[in-house]
């Protein structure tokens, strides 16, 4: 059948449909849900690898849903940035799936609350699978309204996941998260209204070709951007993020911090730099950069001030998201760094490092029963791998070589100094220094083995908790050495306008 040929664009639907089916099955059956989810995550990774191969051989591809060409139908398409995001999701997702298994089975082994934890696990898998489907759908989508639907899919499943722990704090945080996410997507939908009024099409490819600069388009862009920024938690709109991320179960925190915020950011970025690059003015970009800079510094300072490990990691997410926006004002540097590569790099490195860090924090929490930073001494003795993973992830967050975070920061620095906008470079450097403070504030506790400390033998369950975190941390580390790889994919497959920004690479 032609569908199964290597060159068939129909492979593109798999990253959406497979997790979708897995989610349904996980909901339907109460046994073997992990097996289903694992199978879906593995197949997803395989298919994404296949899509990457496709991209390298054939270039960007499109798949028309139902065979209907735009403007009538919905189109999925793969290009460099989309595929990198898909790869990021697939790899991180697989690790998180394994980690979640370890996490839940460890908690269920505690007889006191086994029922509750069993229930959490029961609903975690379908929610997570549907979230995965939503994320993949978002990255692949080439239709404004379809993006809205996937955003909703992501938003609702993410909020439900955040509420899963059932503790009052997490319920409150998740309620706020749900409202914010709904508000964000409503604003986005409002933007679609203006877009549709002005142009009458929903397909991104068609919108891109319209040289539209009218009032309607601008309003649409403003509204959609505000909606997406709310979901991305850029500085003044970040208030919902730390409690939601910090109070969730550890695998959920990893998912939220590593993947979910990236989804809306990715769309924002697409709109600004691929679909409507001519509508955006440099002052706007500078404004976004300023917000990003404030986010970097403010988030880091807040992270330093936290007393709980998970809250600290959550604030670090606020800070790290700021770097993504500092890339904005640097996008138009003549002959400079391709902005796609900067952003993609920071996003990839952050996804791996942050999920590893949240996993490590979760393991520490499970081990000690709390995550107060001042009482973390001696963890290294019983959880050496976790502490190691935490350290490596921290290296990437600090942007030390040779991690992926370093390459991202290097690109940022080169772009800002190359265009004589040295103040961005100062912010980046200061942010890294602050990051080193909050990372090492915890690290120094974890590392120290106080005198008279008796070694607790770690339980066998910890294996599934420790190794996925380490694997992700190592990936984030070696991402820096293998940096030419993602760039290769990026250059190979970007749609025409994006190529303007990627131009200049070999």
């Amino acid at each position: 059948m032609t569908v199964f040929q290597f060159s068939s664009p129909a492979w593109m639907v798999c990253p959406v449909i497979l997790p979708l089916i897995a989610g349904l099955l996980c909901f339907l059956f109460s046994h073997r849900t992990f097996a289903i989810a694992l199978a879906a995550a593995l197949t997803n990774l395989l298919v994404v690898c296949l899509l990457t191969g496709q991209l390298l051989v054939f270039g960007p591809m499109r798949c028309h849903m139902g065979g209907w060409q735009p403007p009538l139908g919905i189109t999925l398409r793969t290009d460099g940035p989309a595929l990198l995001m898909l790869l990021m999701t697939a790899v991180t997702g697989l690790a998180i799936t394994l980690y979640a298994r370890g996490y839940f089975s460890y908690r269920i082994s505690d007889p006191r609350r086994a029922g509750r934890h069993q229930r959490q696990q029961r609903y975690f898998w379908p929610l997570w699978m549907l979230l995965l489907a939503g994320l993949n759908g978002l990255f692949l989508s080439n239709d404004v309204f379809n993006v809205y639907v996937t955003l909703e899919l992501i938003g609702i499943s993410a909020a439900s996941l955040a509420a899963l722990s059932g503790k009052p704090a997490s319920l409150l945080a998740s309620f706020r998260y749900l409202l914010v996410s709904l508000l964000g997507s409503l604003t986005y939908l409002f933007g679609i209204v203006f877009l549709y009024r002005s142009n009458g099409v929903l397909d991104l490819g068609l919108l891109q070709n319209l040289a539209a600069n009218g009032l309607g388009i601008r309003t649409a862009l403003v509204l959609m951007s505000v909606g997406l920024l709310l979901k991305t938690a850029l500085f003044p709109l970040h208030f919902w993020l730390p409690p939601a991320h910090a109070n969730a179960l550890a695998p959920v925190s990893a998912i939220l911090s590593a993947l979910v915020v990236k989804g809306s950011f990715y769309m924002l970025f697409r709109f600004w730099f691929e679909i409507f690059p001519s509508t955006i003015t440099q002052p706007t970009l500078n404004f976004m950069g300023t917000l990003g800079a404030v986010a970097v510094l403010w988030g880091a300072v807040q992270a330093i001030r936290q007393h709980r490990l998970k809250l600290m990691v959550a604030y670090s997410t606020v800070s790290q998201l700021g770097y993504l926006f500092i890339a904005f004002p640097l996008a138009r540097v003549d002959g400079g760094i391709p902005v796609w590569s900067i952003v993609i790099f920071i996003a990839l490195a952050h996804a791996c490092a942050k999920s590893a860090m949240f996993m490590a924090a979760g393991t520490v929490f499970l081990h000690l029963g709390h995550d107060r930073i001042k009482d973390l001494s001696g963890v290294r003795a019983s959880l050496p791998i976790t502490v190691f993973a935490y350290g490596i992830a921290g290296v990437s967050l600090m942007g030390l070589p040779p991690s992926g975070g370093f390459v991202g920061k290097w690109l940022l620095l080169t772009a800002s100094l190359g265009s004589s906008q040295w103040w961005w470079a100062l912010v980046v450097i200061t942010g890294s220094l602050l990051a080193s403070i909050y990372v090492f504030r915890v690290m120094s506790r974890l590392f120290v083995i106080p005198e008279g400390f008796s070694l607790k033998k770690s339980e066998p369950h910890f294996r599934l908790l420790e190794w996925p975190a380490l694997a992700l941390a190592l990936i984030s580390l070696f991402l820096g050495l293998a940096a030419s790889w993602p760039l290769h994919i990026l250059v190979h497959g970007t749609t025409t306008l994006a190529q303007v920004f990627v131009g200049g690479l070999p």
Partner: protein
Amino acid sequence: MITTLIYSLTGLILFGMGFFTLIIHSHPLRKILAVNVMSTGVFLILVATAYIPLGEGEIDPVPHAMVLTGIVVSVSVTALALILACRIQETSNSSLPGRKQQGEVPEESIR
């Protein structure tokens, strides 16, 4: 044309009212209702756009489909948010029996 405009402006005002309420009120139920009013406003404008330039009784089906989708999403989120609000009330004030007094969520609980 003027009909469309009236619908659109009404939708806009609903959106604004909802937004204002959403920000100033701390009560979860009010927040949920506010968001619902906002989404109604957006849907109204969206439906109104379906009607714009044709005038021959022909309508654009795409906004209809979008509104339908939007409504479904809104229903789902509202349901989830309501139940979440109930859970918050239950856990934050476990002395209250059951869920009879659905409106009685402590005000300071959400801000």
